[in-house]
């Protein structure tokens, strides 16, 4: 039987990592803290029933809570008459700028694609584990991952300049 002591130990051990995951979901530390606490409080209700490996269920609750918040809450997009400035890919961007652009592109991904990216490439979960966390099939995980990566690559800010043939000659 897994009781309060086990639960407390789990929360203390895992919550810092879960907080980082939640932050990567929502991009705000305060909201991430709220998200983690909400998810862990929900997990306590079924703590006795979940297996000795509660991580999959915790991830599932975290993703589900995040997705429901995304549906209900305003995400801070501000409509504008003009599109944001796009970095000129021909400029010699340093790594920091590159990462900033990638981070911004990540923030524009839909909730599920962002969750897939975070679980796959931050938590290093397998596709099967991500599928369990997101309550979907492995095929869906693959397609969502593929779409997300494609969007990150084709994001205007990340477009890599390919020299035209005439430039090479």
């Amino acid at each position, binding site marked *: 039987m897994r009781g309060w002591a086990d639960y*407390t130990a789990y*929360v*203390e051990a895992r*919550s*810092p990592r879960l*907080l*980082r*995951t939640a*932050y*990567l979901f929502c991009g705000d*530390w305060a909201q*991430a*803290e709220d998200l*983690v*606490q*909400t998810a*862990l*409080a*929900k997990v*306590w*209700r079924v703590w006795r029933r979940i297996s000795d490996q509660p991580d999959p269920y915790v991830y599932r609750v975290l993703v589900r809570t995040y997705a429901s918040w995304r549906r209900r809450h305003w995400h801070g997009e501000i409509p504008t008459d003009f599109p944001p400035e796009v970095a000129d890919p021909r400029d010699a961007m340093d790594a920091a700028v*590159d*990462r900033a652009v*990638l*981070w911004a592109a*990540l923030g524009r991904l839909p909730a599920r694609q962002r969750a897939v*990216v*975070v679980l796959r*490439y*931050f938590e290093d979960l397998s596709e099967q584990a991500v599928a369990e966390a997101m309550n979907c099939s492995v095929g869906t995980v693959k397609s969502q991952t593929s779409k997300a*990566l494609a969007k*990150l*690559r084709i994001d205007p800010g*990340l477009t890599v300049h390919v020299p035209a043939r005439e430039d090479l000659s």
Partner: protein
Amino acid sequence: MTIHDLHDLLDERSSGAPGNARRMAEIHRRIRRSARRRLAAGALAGAAVLVVAGGLLQWPGDGVTRTTPLTSATTGRPEALTEPPEVFAGMGRVAYGRYNLSGTITRLDVTPQGPDSAIVATCPAGFELLQRTPLAGTRLTRCDTRGGKPAPVPVTPPGEFLENGGPTRLEVAILPEGVAASAYAAIEFGSTSPQAGVDRTSIKLEALLAGQPRKPADWSVAVYSGTCTDRRWCVPVR
């Protein structure tokens, strides 16, 4: 950009998380608050179930409505159902019942308050009201409607059903139109035989209702008693 870059970016961006020494206490508080909310919701749902169950047990079965004059405040009613007036043809309302199913017998014990009495029913189109009293026997009256809504209709004129001086039991039910006529014909012409030794009037009403499915239908019955003062309704010669 490579996957490796993405991995590094996620790791770098999520580092430096603010510490929270009170996290466990805050989660505990959320758990307690959630439990209280669920407990309150459960109690509310339980109370609702009890109210519904109480309503089903009490109504519309064999309950008896006493002759104490009822006010509209004691009988909730839907807007579509017009409540009969407190006074009809100069007689006060001495009993009132409101129901929502057809095919069930409802009994009202009525004590006359004067020489005249009347029954006013409010029932939907497509139904008929059956009433039975010791003095008048079983009667069948077609429900009246106004503009498609149930409307009050006097089904028994004053002076025809109550015995003055003592309490009388009125039994009422509604059925879809035509059901009673065909069932009566079947009983009268021998296809269905009432049991020997059982009051024939009684078996007709019970037999009628026994084979009928209960259907949702808002209807009400009001009983008036006193001295009739409206010539349109008063029996001229008693």
